[in-house]
């Protein structure tokens, strides 16, 4: 019964690094770090941290970005779903949004910066004929002090995440039937969705929403590109402290990392309280019995919203692509004056080993995550147990700020001699990859008709054979998609790769963010595109392979 080891293995892989890392952060926060001469506990790091003049603004802007991102992405997804559920456009919206999930934050952040900056594509398209500008306007758009451009970049990425999470939750709450009943009772589309589907759907969505909130509060890589820098968000301030040459500041950095954790926990608490209040108001509104809710406005707004998202992303990638082949492109030209493939030629030679390493790492991590997930799910199936609450633990790595435990986890990996090589980095990637793979595959697994397995067993197959010869082949597509998602998450890891790899395990993401320091847009364009292409490859495989394998099995091709 190897499957019994699945759940403990899952919990160990997810929680050990987090807990050990948090401990290794907590001790220096209270002055204990023997290598730096800290041998007794003290509150000095906290005093020094709280005396930091920019601290309040850093916390403020982090909270603002976190809440704005969460509210906007949740709102947008609700509007999209309310307007399109059950229509023919729904499949189109799904197809437009799904690929976005695999786009790394950093690539999108760079692309967005190229579009909305004062010297970016939007102003170029409007200048000089509409704006009269011959030079970029002196406007603070990127790195704005309120983090609005950062929030915008995050919202673009979180909408597809929440949208797909909602799609996965719809069947569990029997949404279509509830929606149809409400419609027959005379509720218009938006009112029906908001009053009947949403109250059932939201509890399923709570953890993903909190993950969005926590991520917005603690994101580092995208904040380095789009976020404010005078002062930066709290997470970036932690990184700056942790990387300060004055090693005495490292105690302060640990204290700041603990503070980051506290801010996230506080924000989650606040969200849960607000959620209650909103739930109460919602209930009053639902029993009010109104059949309409902004029907016309939303039916106009939703397609515009979907179009705006698609357009912004398309522009972002167009400008990455244009910059990567631009020899010379000065404001306000819409089109580069000259093109060159020199940058691609030169960078591809440099990038090839890095791309191979990223591929290998991502495939290995995704494979390991799939194995653990299948062990857990098959364990559920064999023992006939319902999915336990314990599985909510898989959200912990998504809720605890990376910066709060990764520095500690990195020290731990060094102590175990697992640092600076692909294996150690892979282990830490697994912490972030496993939750997504598990979420993705468990939905399909639990939807799988149990009668297939029962039939196999009745026909004399062993449980192994029922798994190996019946269930896994039938779930090939779902497994490949979960694997592709895991691969995409592994590719996009920045902090984990940087801190545990010790700089030696370069992936396309560390390389891209590292180049951001160099800021040659053409090189950034090349690497952001490479970074964004790799996850697409994963998803392409997950679509093409089943089509080839099952070319004679139509039902398996179209699940």
């Amino acid at each position, binding site marked *: *019964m*190897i499957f*019994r*080891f699945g759940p403990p293995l899952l919990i160990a892989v997810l929680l050990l690094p987090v807990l050990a890392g948090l401990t290794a952060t907590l001790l220096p926060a209270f002055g204990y*770090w*023997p*290598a*730096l001469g800290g041998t007794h506990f003290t509150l000095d790091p906290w005093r020094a941290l709280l005396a930091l*003049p*920019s601290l309040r*603004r850093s916390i403020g802007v982090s909270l603002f970005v976190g809440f704005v991102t969460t509210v906007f992405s949740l709102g947008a997804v609700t509007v999209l779903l309310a307007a399109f559920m059950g229509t023919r456009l729904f499949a189109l919206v799904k197809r437009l949004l799904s690929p976005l999930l695999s786009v790394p934050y950093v690539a999108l952040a760079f692309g967005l910066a190229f579009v909305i900056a*004062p*010297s970016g594509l939007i102003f170029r398209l409007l200048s000089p004929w509409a704006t009269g500008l011959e*030079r*970029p306007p*002196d*406007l*603070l758009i990127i*790195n*704005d*002090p309120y983090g609005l451009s950062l929030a915008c970049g995050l919202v673009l990425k979180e909408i597809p995440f929440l949208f797909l999470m909602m799609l996965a939750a719809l069947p569990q709450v029997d949404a279509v039937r509830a929606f149809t009943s409400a419609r027959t009772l005379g509720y218009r589309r938006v009112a029906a969705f908001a009053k009947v589907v949403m109250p059932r759907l939201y509890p399923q969505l709570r953890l993903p929403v909190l993950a969005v909130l926590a991520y917005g509060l603690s994101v580092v890589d995208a904040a380095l590109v789009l976020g404010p*820098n*005078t*002062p930066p968000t709290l997470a970036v301030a932690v990184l*700056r402290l*942790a*990387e*300060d*040459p*004055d*090693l005495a500041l*490292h105690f302060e950095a640990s204290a700041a990392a603990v503070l980051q954790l506290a801010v996230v926990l506080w924000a989650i608490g606040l969200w849960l309280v607000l959620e209650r209040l909103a739930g109460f108001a919602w209930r009053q509104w639902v029993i009010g019995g109104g059949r309409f809710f902004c029907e016309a406005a939303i039916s106009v707004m939703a397609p515009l919203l979907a179009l705006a998202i698609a357009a912004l992303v398309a522009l972002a990638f167009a400008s990455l692509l244009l910059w990567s082949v631009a*020899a*010379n492109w*000065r*404001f306000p030209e819409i089109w580069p004056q000259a093109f060159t493939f020199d940058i691609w030629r030169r960078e591809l030679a440099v990038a090839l080993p890095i791309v191979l390493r990223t591929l290998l790492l991502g495939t290995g991590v995704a494979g390991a995550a799939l194995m653990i997930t299948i062990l857990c799910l098959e364990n559920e199936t064999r023992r006939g147990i319902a999915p336990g609450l314990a599985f909510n633990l898989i959200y912990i790595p998504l809720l605890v700020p990376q910066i709060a435990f990764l520095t500690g986890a990195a*020290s*731990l990996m*060094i*102590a*175990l*001699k697992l*640092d*600076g090589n692909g294996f150690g980095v892979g282990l830490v990637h697994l912490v972030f990859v496993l939750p997504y793979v598990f979420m993705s595959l468990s939905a399909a697994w639990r939807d799988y008709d149990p009668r297939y397995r029962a039939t196999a067993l009745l026909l004399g197959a062993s449980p192994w054979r029922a798994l190996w010869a019946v269930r896994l082949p039938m779930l090939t597509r779902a497994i490949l998609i979960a694997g592709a998602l895991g691969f995409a998450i592994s590719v996009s890891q920045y902090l984990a790769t*940087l801190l545990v790899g*010790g*700089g*030696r395990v*370069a992936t396309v993401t560390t*390389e891209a*963010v*590292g*180049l*951001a*320091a*160099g*800021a*040659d*847009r053409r*090189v950034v364009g090349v690497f952001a595109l490479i970074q964004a292409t790799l996850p697409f490859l994963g998803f392409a495989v997950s679509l093409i392979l089943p089509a080839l394998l099952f070319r004679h099995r139509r039902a398996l091709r179209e699940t």
Partner: protein
Amino acid sequence: MKPHLKLLPFFLGFLAFAAVAGGRAQEASPDLKNWPAILEKGRGQTVYWYAWGGSQALNDYIAWAGEEMRSRYGVSVVEVKLTDTAEAVTRVLAEKSAGRNEGGAVDLVWINGPNFASMKENHLLFGPFAEDLPNFRYVDAATNPSLRSDFTIPTEGFEAPWSLAQIVFYGDGAALSPHPGSALSLLDWAKAHPGRFVYPNPSNFLGATFLKQVLIELTPDAARLQQPADDLDFDKVTAPLFAYLDALRPHLWRQGRAYPLNSAALRTLMADGEIDLALSFNPAEASSAIARGELPMSVRSFVFDKGTIGNASFLAIPYNAAHKEGALLLCDFLLSPEAQAKKQNPAGYGGLTVLSMRKLSAVDRARFEALPRGVATLSTEELGPVLPEPHPSWMTRIVTAWQRRYEGQ
């Protein structure tokens, strides 16, 4: 299920063994008096060189040095590109915390200033080695004291000088006719051309150096800056600096509400036409950017009349480096006249050499004389007087004071 459980103690034992094993092989420190032994031991090693990776020209140079090292000494060089050199310091520190006193990840760091001060103070460096390198004989440290003192901290052989840098400004159009000749005339220029100048965020060394440049020019007694900063007179010494910055701030790009993060981001603003005036620590920056097609042909460099800050950057080997011999060979190669001349070529990175022309043979001197000079590069005479770096404590403290003043509101 029983057989699987039996494997568990074995597995745990293996983990424990793996954790303990690696570090036991005691490595002797290389004997610097015995260079042939270093040559022999270094062969086949892979040197991990941690360097700021933001300059494509420098990355290309490091790749060239790697190829030369492989063919000459059988040493492979891997550049670990950093966004900030402090990452390497943190790395060595993390290893020390974890008790990894041998076999560390970092073999060589490109370093200077506070990063060096911090590593030296915390005993994270191998050495002294610098003056035992065979090619150190071409360095004239007696006449150029900045090669033995890094931001006033004595290097004591714990790092080898590698490259010289000096603040230069570069500008286009309105910034050139005539160009500002001092910090005060820069302020006047900024008032006349609002939003067309900015310096990098002082958390970056170039931004911090701009503050030091202004401080040296405006403080009543510049000699005071060679001594450590002190609470007693910090406010008095720096008052003119902050009065200046207060006056400058509303006329900066984005009214001083955001600052580019480093020299490359600053150069990009210039390339986009968002500003007309920028600065760099690399005298060849403007020329090489013009050569790459990033900046327009009309950009030119200039310095202030009374001089600008200059310093040396160095190469250091961490105390726990796994491949010290290879790192020593690489250091020595990088100090060779051939490698130094290649580095100074403005068509590439353009960092000034640390070698003394007087100490070179005629053949080697010719390598330097043959170097082309880019359209926007100043000659050594035009670069003018070099102002010395203040004690590192000033940098740390004015940066903190800057953050308190402009980020805390």
